[in-house]
């Protein structure tokens, strides 16, 4: 038998279509100050589709697919020691736009080490690799949509865009809600980082409130004294209508 199973239906989960994505708030495809977007952005308009079964369904993941240390970046690549850097907890909830918790959401995250160096064949930045830090993890949200992981706060790093561009400290997030239509990749930034507002990737988002929603506040209530600081990052996926009127997906 496979290691994943369709979970029991959530008793209050709505059964309708998903709210349309507000594309005036997301970054558009073409944001010329982020130079790579120039040749990688579509010129034609997107074709709008009303949801069918192809969009309201999506892959389902199970706890037994993940390893015990998958959400602990301080331990999951330790080779005889702890990674160097600021020990932090990142935690929060996955909700939808109607405020409903999204249980069983798969979150995957990746980041540079404390010096801003990625463990990736293609990263040649001169800051050193940390032998005890891999930089990736994953977890499933619980029945209340809650998730948490432990890591080292990543450092900023330079990138070849303008001559002197530096990414703010950030953690990449990939999230699966129950529907493929909710699929999302984003980046979390840290409260108070002065690099946030000069970053062309951040500023591709046309709406300052939407940018603020990507900035995780320091959360002393969740920090562990004499051990680990904490940041809180809630994630909102597309909401879903409770009822369908005409145009039922069910057919007739």
């Amino acid at each position, binding site marked *: 038998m496979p290691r994943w199973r369709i979970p029991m239906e959530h008793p209050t989960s709505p059964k309708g279509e998903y709210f349309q994505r507000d594309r005036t708030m997301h970054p558009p495809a073409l944001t010329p100050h982020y130079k790579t977007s120039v040749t990688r952005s579509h010129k034609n308009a997107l074709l709008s589709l009303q949801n069918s079964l192809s969009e309201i369904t999506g892959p389902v993941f199970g706890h037994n697919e993940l390893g015990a240390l998958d959400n602990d970046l301080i331990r999951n690549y330790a080779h005889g020691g702890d990674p160097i850097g600021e020990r932090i907890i990142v935690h929060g909830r996955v909700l939808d736009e109607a405020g409903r918790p999204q249980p069983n959401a798969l979150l995957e995250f990746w980041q540079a080490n404390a010096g801003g160096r990625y463990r990736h064949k293609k990263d040649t930045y001169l800051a050193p690799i940390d032998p005890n830090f891999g930089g990736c993890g994953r977890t499933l949200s619980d029945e209340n949509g809650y998730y948490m992981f432990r890591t080292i706060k990543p450092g900023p790093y330079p990138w070849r865009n303008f001559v002197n561009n530096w990414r703010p400290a950030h953690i990449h997030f990939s999230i699966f809600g129950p529907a493929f239509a909710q699929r999302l*990749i984003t980046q979390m930034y840290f409260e108070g980082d002065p690099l946030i507002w000069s970053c062309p990737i951040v500023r591709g988002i046309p709406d300052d409130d939407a940018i603020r929603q990507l900035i995780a506040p320091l959360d002393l209530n969740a920090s562990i004294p004499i051990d680990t600081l904490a940041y809180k990052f809630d994630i909102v996926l597309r909401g879903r209508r409770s009822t369908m009127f005409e145009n039922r997906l069910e057919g007739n």
Partner: protein
Amino acid sequence: MVQPLDYLRETASQTAGPYVHIGLIPKQAGFDIFENQLGDTMLTPETKGERITIKGHVFDSTGTPLRDVLLEIWQANADGRYNHPDDTQGKPLDETFRGWGRTGSHFETGLYTFKTIKPGAVRGRHTHTMAPHINVWIVARGINIGLNTRMYFSDETEANAKDPVLNLIELEKRRETLIAQRSERDGEVIYTFDIHLQGDNETVFLDI
């Protein structure tokens, strides 16, 4: 004043960046960390259906293949049923087939590959039946928000002609950008599906 509409707002998208592999395909980034790499293998020997290989490149506006692109596919099983509790068609479930796969294009050639099965037709809206198709999602450096598209099959001409989504595309010529071309080599069934992000053959992307 009216009452506030107190919906939350969706978290904004950001590019997956050039190092997306670290989080989603760590083996390709160059290190071994997870026991179970998600999305790597779509099939078991018991999975029902015609084995197919999907291959292609994702091109930028200069015709250069993206060598750092990540693709995910989501599809129904051979009977046209999604492995998901909201699929209410009453068709048989194949427990050995999740229907989801993930791959990165090759760092030198930009070629991507999926080994899967050909999906059955799925019910669409109203009384329509959709032609067999695979839902595709693409992220990469330079792509600010994941791109959705669909892959249809060149040997399903009749079903494609009646497909409610293909028929929404006003310019008939652009429908062809969603049709993967079938070929066979040494008994292997290959569908070639090239994706053009921008330019003359720009693929139709969807706002789902």
